[in-house]
């Protein structure tokens, strides 16, 4: 298009030998540009810290208090208490680790499976592609949530890694397909042909030449997969179709709705609202932050 500016000038500020650092600098500038993004970023950081350090803030077994069942919101219980008089805030904070760690693992597995299979299918066209794509079709055809439910009863979800793994193996299909099509189009690009002509190994081409170019897409997907995983696992616990043993947000929702009658009784409402609030705030944070990622990586939306 004739309207486009000469490409060279837009990036003059990055004429800095240490490009990597300047990327982080650029990323940070993108974040602070709008207050919404900063808020989103802060929320994500807060929740990450909660996941890492939350359990250390409270005793291993949260204290119960039969005299403060469904206590109203107070300084002692900022989010009220549950059916046995345990602080809802403590439950949310200590429950974050499993939820977030499993979600992170789920996202990592999704992205790792999806990326590797997508790259291989797109690059080694032919038989490899056919086999991988048939498996992908299969994964995409089976409704993932019900599959998750069935898998989860066969598996034991004591460890968040196991949960993450199952979330990963049910969720990589879409990403694999997208990465494949991007890889296929990159494959036709001159620099891949040149790399082949220069005798570089397929491994180098896949992971050093192609991967960085789908990196931005994968980064976005990683974040989206985190939210997707949170919803899926919290949903599983909420429905109660999986065995559970640890305190987490989904269990709270389940107990609040099905045991505590939070839907019918205002006294138990804080018990229901606490995990919902946590999920919503985290969602909000991710939505706000996605906007920044979008700008960091999607040149199409970047306003010149």
């Amino acid at each position, binding site marked *: 298009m*004739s309207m486009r*500016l*000469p490409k*060279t*000038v837009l990036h003059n500020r990055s004429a800095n030998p240490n490009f990597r650092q300047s990327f982080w600098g650029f990323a940070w500038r993108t974040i602070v540009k709008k207050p919404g993004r900063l808020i989103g970023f802060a929320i994500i950081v807060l929740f990450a810290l909660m996941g890492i350090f939350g359990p250390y803030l409270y005793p291993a077994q949260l204290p119960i208090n039969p005299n403060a069942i469904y206590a109203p919101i107070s300084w002692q219980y900022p989010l009220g208490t549950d059916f046995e008089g345990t602080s809802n805030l403590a439950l949310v904070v200590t429950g974050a680790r499993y939820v977030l760690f499993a979600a992170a693992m789920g996202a990592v597995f999704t992205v790792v499976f999806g990326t590797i299979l997508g790259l291989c299918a797109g690059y080694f066209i032919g038989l490899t592609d056919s086999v991988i794509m048939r498996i992908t079709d299969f994964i995409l055809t089976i409704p993932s949530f019900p599959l998750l439910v069935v898998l989860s009863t066969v598996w034991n979800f004591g460890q968040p890694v196991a949960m993450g793994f199952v979330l990963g193996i049910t969720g990589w299909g879409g990403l694999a397909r997208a990465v494949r099509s991007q890889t296929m189009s990159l494959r036709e690009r001159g620099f891949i042909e040149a790399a082949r002509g220069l005798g570089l190994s397929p491994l180098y081409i896949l992971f050093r030449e192609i991967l960085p170019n789908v990196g931005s897409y994968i980064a976005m997907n990683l974040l989206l997969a985190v939210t997707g995983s949170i919803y899926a696992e919290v949903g599983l616990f909420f429905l109660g179709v999986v065995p559970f043993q640890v305190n987490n947000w989904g269990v709270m929702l389940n107990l609040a709705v099905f045991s505590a009658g939070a839907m019918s009784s205002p006294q138990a409402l804080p018990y229901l609202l606490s995990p919902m609030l946590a999920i919503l705030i985290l969602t909000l944070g991710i939505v706000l932050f996605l906007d920044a990622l979008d700008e960091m990586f999607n040149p199409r939306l970047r306003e010149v």
Partner: protein
Amino acid sequence: MSAELMHGKSAEPAVRVRGLNVVYATSQGDLPAVRDVDLDIEAEKITGIIGESGSGKSTLVMALLNSVGKPGKIVSGSVMVPGVGDMLSIDRERQRRARGKELGLVFQAAQNSLNPLRRIGHQVLDLGRSHEVRDLRDLLRKASDLLTRLGMDADRVLTSYQHELSGGMRQRVGIMFALILDAKIVILDEATTALDMLSQASVLEIVRELHKERGLTTILVTHDMGVVADMADRVVVMYGGEIVEEGPSGSVLSHPAHPYTQGLIRAIPRISGAIDRAVPLPGAPADLKTYLEPGCPFYQRCAAAMPKCQANRPTSLTVSADRKVACFKVTDHD
């Protein structure tokens, strides 16, 4: 329809551009893309506008239609078209009607200038309806005639979708769209760049013939000096958003005055004459940094640069009856 234009004095230019400035709004502020352009396009002549990528030639052409897309915006100037008025100040509806009807544009990316989901014939009808053509059947007949004239199977093309046509055919369909409403001013913006030699030659041939037959005013925008040299009556050389040289093509080619024009002509490999006559032009084309500097935009690459050129921008001066140059070396001598 455009009777005034047909019978207008030939001395009156078909398009008169005055003081045109276009900028691109960026996060770093407004960057000039077209600067202080004054230009008269002579009626019924082929005018070639030549320049490299980033020289502002396409922006200039879009400004003629007042269709500069975001983030570009026209800051000042006027584009007078007889029978229409100043394209930059008449109301939007009249601008819209002038586009397509008075001013036909064949797009740089004409290959993709058609709605992929509608048959060509339907798009002809859409065009007719937008310009209040009463007899749509007649319009289709005209389209059919034009397509035949352009060397295509008209019935097949009209019932085809874009993807069913080859690149050369799409380009010709683009020309058909520019001419079908009897526009007298036709602008070809890099219309043949994507075609290979043989297609380019045949499309240019048709353009030349139609130009003559219909008494068109043709503006040919290209980066290919050869095409301009072959086709144009007048040539306008742009560099860094400005017109650096302007004149009849024969005289400019044989006696280029501006160092850029000279370098450009010298850098053309030819099929005639001694091979080593061709000499590369050093440096890189103008970019936004160049635009922002106060001096001559060609200063960095100019072999004949003087200290004066770094700080002052030469303005376009008439050097002979119909030639203008913007270079201190030329104007100072004279």
